[in-house]
C-alpha cells in the first residue's frame, strides 16, 4: 500500500503521511484525538527519517493498541519531534481493517516540488 502526503512544509507533508497511515487501518473521522503520545527520531537523511517516523508510529499503534488521528511534526536540527493524538482501538467503532507491519524503503521520496509544495511518500507493508 502506498502513502503520499503533501504540505506547504516538509513537516506538514510528514503529518499528512501519518494521517494516510491511519486511513489504511480505519476511517480517520472515527478516531478521537483524546490522548497524546510524543515521538522523537533522529537522522541526517530526510527520507530515512520519514521511514523512522512512520515505523515509530507503527510501534506505538501496536504496543499501545491505539489509533491516531492528529499529528504535529517539528524539525529541530537533525531531530524530528512529533506528537500524535488518538485513542485506544475500539474494535466495534473503528472496525480496523489491517495491521501495518512496517514502513518500507520502496517508492520512498521526500522532496520539494517545482510549485514549492513538499511531497513525502513511501510504501508500507500490511
Amino acid at each position, binding site marked *: 500500500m502506498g502513502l503520499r502526503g503533501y504540505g506547504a512544509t516538509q513537516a506538514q507533508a510528514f503529518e499528512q503521511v501519518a494521517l494516510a497511515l491511519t486511513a489504511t487501518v480505519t476511517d480517520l473521522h472515527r478516531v478521537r484525538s483524546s490522548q497524546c503520545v510524543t515521538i522523537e527520531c533522529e537522522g541526517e537523511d530526510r527520507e530515512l527519517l520519514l*521511514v523512522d517516523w512512520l515505523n515509530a508510529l507503527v*510501534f506505538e499503534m501496536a504496543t499501545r493498541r491505539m489509533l491516531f488521528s492528529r499529528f504535529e511534526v517539528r524539525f529541530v536540527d537533525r531531530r524530528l519531534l512529533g506528537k500524535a493524538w488518538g485513542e485506544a482501538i475500539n474494535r466495534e467503532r473503528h472496525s480496523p*481493517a*489491517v495491521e501495518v*507491519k*512496517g514502513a518500507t524503503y520502496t517508492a520512498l521520496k521526500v522532496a520539494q516540488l517545482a510549485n514549492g509544495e513538499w511531497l513525502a511518500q513511501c510504501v508500507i507493508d500490511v
Partner: protein
Amino acid sequence: MSETYPLQRESEFSWRIEPTGKMRVPGIIYADEELIRAMDDKVFEQLCNVAGLPGIVQAAYAMPDAHWGYGFPIGGVAAFDADQGGVVSAGGVGFDISCGVRALRTGLTIDEIEPVKKQLADALFRQIPVGVGSTGRIHLNDKGMTAMLRGGARWAVEQGFGEMEDLQHIEEKGCMAGAVPDEVSARARKRQQDEMGTLGSGNHYLEVQRVAQIYDQRIATAFGLRENDVIVFIHCGSRGLGHQIGTEFLKYMVLAASQHGIELPDRELACAPINSELGQAYLGAMRAGINCALANRQIITHLTRQVFADVLPKADLTLLFDVSHNTCKVETHLVDGRKRKLYVHRKGATRAFGPGNPDLPETLRAIGQPVLIGGSMGTESHILAGSEKGTELSFNSACHGAGRAMSRHQATKLWKGRSVVDELADRGIIIRSPSMRGVAEEAPGAYKDVRAVVDAAEKAGLAHKVARVEPHVCIKG
C-alpha cells in the same frame, strides 16, 4: 508481454532473462503465458536487481504467483554462497518472518460438520484471537520470551500446547537451530508480549475446509487425505516481533551497505555479507523470528483442538505439515554437479523438498514434502508435494498462494464487506471477521486465480498437485 525486459521462453512454463548490466546470474520465471503477461514489469526489474547481488548462485527465480514486492519480488527465490561473498537480506525474507501455512486433518467428513458448522464458526471466532488490536491469553515476560525464541514450536509443546508428535511434521522439527534471542531487540519483544497465539489481520486466516478433489491418489493416501475429509488451514506468521526485526535490520542494512562495499540499486534490497557481524546478527534474530512463528501456529493449533473437542468431540486433529514462506535457510543443493551449502531466501515462496530429502520425517521421506498453497477465502486452496526435479529447478521452491490481482483500495471500491459475507454464505461458506472493510479488501475477486498458479507450478515441475480443498468456515483477520 514485457517490452522492457527481454524474456526468452525456455519451455512452455519457464522464461529466462539473460544477465545484462550488473546481473551476475540470469533471472528465471516459472509461469504460463497468461500469468507472465499479467505480471507487472516491476517483477522483472526486481528479479534483475536480485540477480546482481553479491554471491548469488545459479539464478534469481520467480514463482508463478510472483508480484512486485519490497526489493525482492514476492514469490522470489535466491540462494547465496557465504564463501563467495554471499549476502543475507532482510528485504529478501520480508517483514513477516516465517509467515506460513499449517494444515491439520480432523478425522471428520463434511457430513459430520454440516449440522454444527455455524456453532463451530462462532466458537473458533470466539476462542482464537484475530484482527487488529487482539491479544492472546499468554503474556510472556522476558525470560519466557527468550525461551520461546529459542525453542519455537518445541517450546510451545513443552508449555502444554499440543503434542510431541506434532513436531515431526513441522519444518526444522518445530525448532529453528541457530536462533539468537539476544539479537532480538527490546522493542521487538515488546511488540510480541501480548501477541502469542494471535492470528493477526490482512491476508491471515484460519479455514475449515473440505477435500473437494484428489489429483494424486497415492500421495493423498500417504498424506492421510480422502475426498470429503475436513481439514483446517492456519495462515499466519511471527506477528509484531517478526515485523519489528524486519524493520530494524532493514535499516541497519541500508546504513551499512556502503561500508560493506555493496551498491544497492534499490534501498529495499538492503543486505549484508553473511560473513559479517551484521549478517550474523540478522540470521540470529531472523531464526528467533522463525521460532516465534512456529510457536504461534502451534498455540493456535492447540486452541483449534480445544474448540473442536467442545463442538465435535469425535474430532482428532493431527498435523499434516507446517510450511513457512518467508525465510532464509541454510541448505545443501547440487550446483553444476557439486554439493554446496547455500543461504536460500524464499520470500512468498514455499520450500518444496522432493522425495528422499533427509530433512523430511520418515513418514514423508518417500513421498515428498506437503506444499500448502492458500487461496483466497471464497475460492480454494491446494495441497501439493515436492518434486524430484525441484532441486535443480528452483532450489526446491514452489509458489505460496494466489497473489493479489488488485490493490486493497481498488477492492473496497468494488465490494462491500457485508455483501461479500452474504454472497459467500449463499454458497455455504461462513465468514467471521472483526472488520467488514478487511473482508472487502480480501474479497475473492481481488486475488488471481490460484488454480492457474498451481497448474503452472506443477507443469513447470516445481511440485505435484495432490488435492484441492474448498473453504466452509473462514475466520478472517
